[in-house]
């Protein structure tokens, strides 16, 4: 070990010793009151963290709401789109004889 490396190790050792034995300032008395006030504010009037955790519960309910709305919208769109399609097919077969004849004339070619 050269001199430089020995000196580095010595300073490092001193810093480790300092870190492990340093004295810390005392805790401010009002700290705990402020913490409990923040917790009470976070909890709301009668809300406590649930067994699955607050965030998890909220996410599940939000997802359920979004999924329900999407399902209703999709079902509605599908219903109207299908009705329109069925109407067009029926119209083609029953009412649009000219069109059918035209199609037939092409098939006969």
């Amino acid at each position: 070990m050269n001199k430089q490396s020995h000196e580095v190790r010595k300073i490092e050792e001193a810093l480790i010793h300092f870190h492990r034995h340093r004295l810390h300032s005392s805790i401010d008395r009002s700290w705990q009151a402020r913490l409990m006030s923040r917790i009470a504010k976070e909890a709301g009037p009668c809300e406590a963290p649930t067994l699955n955790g607050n965030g998890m519960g909220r996410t599940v309910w939000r997802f359920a709401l979004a999924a329900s709305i999407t399902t209703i919208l999709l079902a509605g769109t599908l219903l109207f789109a299908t009705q329109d399609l069925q109407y067009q097919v029926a119209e083609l077969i029953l009412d649009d004889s000219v069109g059918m004849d035209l199609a037939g004339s092409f098939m006969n070619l």
Partner: protein
Amino acid sequence: MSRERTLSGEAPSPEEETDTEIIGRVLGGDVNAFEGLVNRYRSRVFGIVMKHVPADGTEDVAQETFLEAYRSLGSFSGRSSFGQWLSRIATRCCYHFWRERRGSPTVSVSSLSDNAEEWMDRVLSAGSQESFLKEAAKQEAAEVLTHALEKLSAADRMVLALVHLDGYSVQETADLLGWSTVSVKVRAHRSRRKLRKIIGDLLQERGG
């Protein structure tokens, strides 16, 4: 922490309640019961936070630790003790503190004061173990340590502090930070090398 009901069947006092019982009360809606856990673990949390965060940030980080514990209380499985679980939250809050601070433009790495440079001289010239330890405990060391750690990234800093300064094992550090042991081992080696390089540079600057 164990507890037994009294022979008369009276409810236990807050000091006699187990952590699990207090947690049950908090989850049941008794928010004020959380203060029992704060009273019990305040010193432990401050012990961790004060070692890793500068004085101007300790109270905020300690508050964040307990707030995060309160928010996540429902996910506490009881696999480890509440104290160990809370220590993990405190360590991660410290790491988060440094990640945020590193990103802020207010951090400045200035050069060492004359006092700190003289402290290094005295440490190097200490002849006996007794005089070395006496010097090592002096407040000037704080400046050198702060100066060196400020040059490291948040992740390097936390791993260095936990493994080399606090003396935790790689496994314990990985558990506290929620990282893999391989990642901690690699970072611990790299950060120690960086610390030595920083100290070497300081010694050279002082010499030049």
